């Protein structure tokens, strides 16, 4: 089959970032009837590539052609006219409208028939009557994909669609991709997970720092080779965390923290895990630092989101919450962070009732939170890295960054620079705008900030590795582990079961607003038990 | 600057301040007509400024005062600023037209009082006489003293002509220059039974005339006399503000200028108030004449 999409020397330059090239001299061809994966670390230029093809961003250099004719899209609408549709990770459904209304924006005539056909052909069924804002994330993602398929495009660009999906949904998505390719169309799939690549891709392209470093048909370039290309080093050096993060080792080979601790120091990334040991853990573990009792939260529409949840976090222990998205995990975290008022129940931190405390008061009391929605809740993109790191600290009286009320920029920069170095953040210095960083680097900054809270006793991290490349994943996981080793009680909410199994001491499962479990990760059947609980089989 | 007098000549320099628009078909425009007559006559060096925000009144007055021998300011809304600026320029003569009629003049500030009320007395008399049902009403722009007094005078005039005339409560549009609202105010008054209306609004008149047309009713025009061919108008009051500017210039030129309250109108002998009757009915003309005579003689008070 011929090339559907061809890119010739495509480049995109932004004024401010580093040498400015987000994408440089990319030449690439996507054949009809194939699934073409685009791989790369955070900030490698994958989204930029998709956005260029989709007309959301105009190229600085280079040419594109679709089915052999020149293609110069000025807008996503142009792209659609040329048969190219894109699924974005964020912001492309109108939350206040129903699913049907959202789909009608693309196509009105015979919408029902078309939906039926999409359901048949690709196994994607949606409930048209629901308001999008009320749907769980996974369901929204499905609507996004249906929306992209509505105009019957020749090429579908999927930018990291699997981040918010559970295992079953990912399977379905892979089926959908194959069905699309099977019908003579093509899919460009952006992902960090090589496991998915090996299951679905016909061809792959690897980006590093904005340039193509390799790729080709999967029959010619096997997955381990892709991995080395992404890493820029030999795949053999990959540690288990990272391997599980990219989906090569489903479930993680070494289970639980106890097991991991035994290998402490074996890899550079977990080298900080110094004073761990089961003895120390048990001693610290005796102390409940955060306890939640009878917590109930309702959605704005009145339906229950969290129902009578009890939860105890113990110092030095990592508790995981697994579960399909939309089972109350997000709301639980938002209640803990103070962004949401519960309908009933209490949250106690140490001896204090913090149920209705402000986020600032919680921070003062030693509660750190890494929110799920990074762009909205965790960072201010327009402020600098230093400001994002230190803003909360400025609130407290007499911070070391203020003299006579004035900010001490030099001191702030110095402090931020040391964090940047410490966490190996790729940024244009402490004054770089937060939004100019790639997702993984943004996440590192957020984590660094929360870990630096004075007297941190509890850390709640929601989907801390979502959308991160494996280097970043490993580093984030190591930091969380390090915090626990310092005696912090850590709660990790994640849809990556494998990641939780390697990281946590015990795992709870969110199901219909309740927490099921716990499952001890040292238990050899832990993975299966978590899987069962996720489908709602009561524990 | 205009007038056919070159700078540097010893012609009298006069600055006229119109805080409103000189095309308002009312008070300001009537004054501007006088300004234009002076311009045509020549012999004085004239300049004017129109349409400023309240915060800029003072600045305009100061500029005039520093360049002219005589400064004329129109409208009571400038009173506070005129009273403030005049003392700073003792050698310049100031005239305020339409300010409060009971304000004490300053050594270099005279008040000229156009007797709009007298004109409205006549307007009321004519209105009541031509009215078929003896019901009349009055529409005013803003509830300013001069307008309120004129409204009273209108009622008194109506009762003077027809002692059993029904005078509806006056309407205040809240704006001299809003034709849509003026139309509503007029319609409401017609709707309440009036068939002739007196008025002191400026651009609002367009709306009133339309209300009269739609209701098949009539009204009194003015202050600038218009066309008697228009059947909606029974007549026009003629309050000539321009005459007062001319008077001020003459007074200064002839050395008779004095810091005092000067009344214009029928009772003063200074003229400036008149009524242009469109009706050819002799009884109406007779009533108008009677009202004019009685007013001039001081036998009746307009308000």
């Amino acid at each position: 089959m011929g090339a559907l999409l061809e890119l010739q020397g495509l480049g995109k330059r932004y004024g401010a970032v580093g040498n400015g090239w987000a994408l440089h001299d990319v030449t690439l061809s996507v054949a009809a009837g194939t699934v073409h994966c685009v791989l790369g670390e955070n900030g490698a230029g994958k989204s930029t590539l998709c956005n260029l093809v989709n007309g959301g961003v105009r190229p600085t250099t280079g040419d594109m052609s679709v089915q052999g004719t020149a293609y110069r899209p000025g807008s996503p609408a142009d792209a659609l006219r040329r048969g190219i549709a894109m699924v974005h990770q964020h912001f492309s459904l109108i939350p206040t409208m129903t699913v049907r209304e959202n789909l009608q924006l693309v196509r009105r005539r015979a919408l029902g028939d078309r939906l039926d056909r999409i359901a048949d052909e690709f196994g994607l069924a949606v409930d048209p009557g629901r308001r999008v804002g009320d749907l769980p994330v996974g369901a929204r993602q499905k609507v996004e994909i249906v929306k992209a398929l509505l105009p019957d495009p020749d090429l579908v660009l999927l930018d990291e669609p699997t981040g918010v999906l559970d295992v079953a949904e990912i399977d379905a998505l892979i089926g959908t991709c194959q069905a699309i390719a099977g019908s003579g169309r093509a899919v460009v799939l952006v992902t960090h997970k090589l496991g998915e690549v090996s299951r679905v891709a016909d061809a792959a392209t690897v980006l590093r720092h904005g340039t193509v470093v390799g790729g080709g048909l999967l029959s010619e370039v096997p997955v381990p080779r892709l991995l080395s290309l992404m890493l820029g080093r030999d795949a053999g050096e990959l540690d288990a965390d990272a391997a599980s993060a990219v989906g090569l080792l489903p479930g993680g080979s070494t289970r639980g923290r106890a097991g991991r601790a035994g290998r402490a120091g074996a890899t550079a990334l977990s080298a900080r895990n110094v004073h761990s040991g089961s003895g120390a853990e048990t001693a610290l573990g005796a102390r409940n630092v955060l306890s939640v009792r009878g917590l109930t939260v309702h959605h704005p529409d009145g339906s229950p989101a969290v129902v009578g949840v009890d939860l105890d976090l113990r110092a030095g222990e990592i508790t995981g919450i697994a579960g399909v998205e939309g089972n109350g995990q997000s709301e639980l975290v938002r209640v803990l962070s103070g962004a949401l008022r519960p309908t009933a129940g209490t949250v106690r931190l140490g001896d204090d009732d913090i149920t209705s405390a402000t986020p600032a008061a919680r921070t003062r009391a030693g509660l750190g939170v890494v929110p799920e929605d990074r762009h909205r809740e965790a960072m201010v993109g327009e402020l600098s890295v230093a400001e994002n790191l230190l803003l909360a600290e400025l609130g407290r009286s007499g911070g070391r960054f203020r003299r006579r009320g004035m900010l001490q920029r030099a001191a702030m920069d110095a402090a931020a620079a040391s964090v940047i170095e410490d966490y190996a953040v790729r940024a244009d210095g402490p004054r770089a705008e937060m939004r100019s960083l790639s997702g993984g680097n943004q996440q590192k900054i957020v984590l660094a900030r929360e870990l630096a809270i004075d007297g941190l006793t509890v850390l709640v991290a929601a989907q801390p590795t979502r959308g991160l490349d494996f280097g970043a994943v490993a580093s984030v996981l190591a930091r969380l582990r390090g915090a626990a080793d310092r005696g912090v009680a850590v709660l990790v909410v994640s849809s990556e079961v494998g990641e939780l199994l390697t990281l946590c001491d015990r795992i709870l499962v969110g199901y219909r607003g309740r927490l099921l479990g716990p499952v001890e990760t040292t238990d050899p059947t832990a993975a299966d038990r978590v899987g069962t609980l996720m489908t709602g089989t009561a524990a | 600057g205009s007038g056919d007098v070159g700078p540097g000549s010893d012609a009298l320099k006069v600055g006229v301040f119109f805080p409103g628009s000189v095309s308002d078909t009312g008070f300001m425009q009537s004054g501007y007509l006088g300004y234009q007559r002076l311009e045509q006559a020549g012999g004085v060096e004239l300049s004017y400024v129109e349409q400023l925000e309240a915060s800029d009144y003072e600045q305009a007055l100061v500029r005039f005062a520093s360049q002219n021998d005589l400064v004329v300011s129109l409208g009571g809304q400038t009173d506070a600023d005129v009273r403030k600026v005049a003392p700073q320029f003792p050698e310049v003569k100031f005239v305020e037209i339409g300010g409060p009629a009971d304000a004490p003049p300053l050594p270099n500030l005279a008040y000229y009082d156009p007797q709009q009320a007298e004109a409205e007395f006549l307007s009321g008399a004519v209105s009541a006489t031509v009215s078929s049902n003896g019901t009349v009403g009055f529409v005013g722009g803003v509830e300013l003293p001069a307008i309120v007094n004129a409204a009273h005078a209108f009622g008194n005039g109506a009762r003077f002509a027809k002692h059993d005339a029904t005078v509806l409560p006056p309407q205040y549009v809240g704006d001299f220059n809003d034709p849509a609202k003026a139309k509503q105010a007029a319609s409401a008054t017609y709707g309440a039974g009036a068939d002739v209306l007196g008025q002191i609004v400026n651009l609002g008149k367009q709306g009133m005339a339309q209300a009269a047309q739609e209701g098949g009713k009539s009204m009194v025009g003015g202050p600038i006399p218009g066309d008697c061919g228009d059947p909606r108008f029974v007549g026009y009051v003629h309050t000539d503000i321009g005459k007062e500017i001319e008077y001020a210039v003459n007074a200064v030129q002839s050395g008779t200028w004095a810091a005092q309250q000067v009344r214009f109108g029928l009772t003063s002998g200074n003229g400036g108030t008149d009524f242009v009757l469109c009706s050819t009915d002799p009884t109406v003309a007779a009533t108008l004449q009677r009202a004019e005579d009685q007013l001039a003689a001081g036998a009746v008070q307009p308000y």
Partner: protein
Amino acid sequence: MTLLTQILVSGIGFALPLLVAAVGELVSERAGALNLSLEGMMLSGAFCAVLGSVTTGSPWLGAVAGVLGGLLLGAAQALLSVRALADQIVVGIAANALALAASTFGARLVFTGGTEVPAFDRLPIPVLHDIPVLGPAVFSQTALGWICVLVVVVTAVLLGPRTGRGLRIDATGEDAVAADRTGLPVRRLRALCILLTSAMAGLAGAQLALSEVRAFSDNMTAGIGYLAVVAVIAGRWRAPGTALAAVLFGLAQALQYALPALGVAVPPALLTMIPYAIAVVAVSGLAGSSRAPSCLTVPFARA
């Protein structure tokens, strides 16, 4: 005509231009564009309508000119706020000042003396017009008035929230980024909505000038444009509510002038506040819920 009929007639007369402008503005606001320049669009429409009517002698061509006059300002608003990403509010305020000054300037150049304006006459609908009280108020509009009603209904129906176009407009105003990614031409949609709004505002100005007042006078819209924006807010961004608000405002205004005739004295300033106070309550959520389109006044540009 009874007073009640009179109130209805003049209330609806005032409400009609308000309604056309408000329903037009509603379309823009749903697409995320706030046109404070609505006032200027109406004024420009009124000026051009009268200019067109006077020069061609045909009120119909005048009405067309009025629409074009509105479009002129709409094009400026669209160009600056959609294309150049200038702040909508700044553009709106400055455009109003521009329209006021330019139309006043133009009126002085071209409308000198009492030019007769060819205008529209009322076309009562037989039978319906004779319905007591309501008939004369509702079923006796000018030809242009009927067109206004038609345009309002057609706009409300064709661009209603359930139609395809309506959905696209709502999507653009609710989340412009998502709409863009969906393939909607966000900027073009917004520009078109603004142009539609301005054409309707021009029509409203023409209706005001050629049906209601039958003349042009400086600043003759005197805040109706702002009131139309308020009607959209009080109507909670839906056509029926907006229409209701516009009619209510018109009637309230008429009632304001009927009160004195009924012997009720309320300070007019107090009544002036009422529509705005109603609108504040309507948006505050104190009575029911309401939300402005999320992207109202937020310019859109692709990152």
